[in-house]
């Protein structure tokens, strides 16, 4: 059994999931804060 296949699989999974949650959280923050600014400017 090739040990590196398991190692690479585990790292790939971790980095993919970490990247995904980072990107989603970043985008949610940018969108919400942008809209909050817009709403504040309008009134």
């Amino acid at each position, binding site marked *: *059994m090739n*040990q*590196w296949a*398991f*190692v690479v*699989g*585990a*790292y790939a*999974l*971790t980095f993919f*999931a*970490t990247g995904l*949650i*980072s990107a989603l*959280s*970043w985008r*949610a*923050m940018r*969108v*919400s*804060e942008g*809209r*909050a600014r817009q*709403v*504040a400017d309008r*009134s």
Partner: protein
Amino acid sequence: MHRFANPARFLQIARPLTGWLFWSGLLLLLIGSGCGLFLTPADYLQGDTVRILYIHVPAAWLGMAGWSGIAIAALMQLVWRHPLAAVAGRAIAVPGALFTAICLLTGSIWGRPTWGTWWEWDGRMTSMLVLFFLYLGYIALAHASARQGSGGVSPVAAIFGLVGAVNIPIINRSVVWWNSLHQGPSITLRGSSIDTTLLWPLGLTLLGFTLLFGGIVLMRMRAILAHNKIEARMQRLARG
């Protein structure tokens, strides 16, 4: 404590801190992973699969630390009515659940070549799976309270967060109390039974993942706070 209860003052600190935490955490964990993959020697028994340690342990730590954070936030919410605590609890939930899942999955991938099985119902694995389900329950409760219009979690969700904290010491002690397939704790107060040549990248990835987690939580808190602001403004406009 109440000095930071004011969202405006919190944001003053959180805005610059978010990027710093996130990028320094990412840098550290990439360096740590690189060292753990290419610089450290293979284990005498397991060979190269031991390298999964450098991501499996931080993921386990974050899964458990995340729930501890939820429990502390719940305590502050219930006792001191701290307005940011409810927001913090909700912000921790999803990344905490994700890292618990990463811990379970990397553990499974590690178990196949070392133990000869993907999954066994031993004390450590079962209690960690219970933690994952607790997260799912908490997320559902937090989601329901958010739909009712409050920015944070409801008192019911906070109580759930406190009660679920019982599982954290059980996970920690599971390999000591019960015969388990998972090995006992390597790093104790008395020292480490992981040789230093293998141990040092773990410090980097542990710190890196923790800082990154902090950055993600701050992002999510800022998103919730901004969302609250919009809701409040909309309600005021609707009333005229």
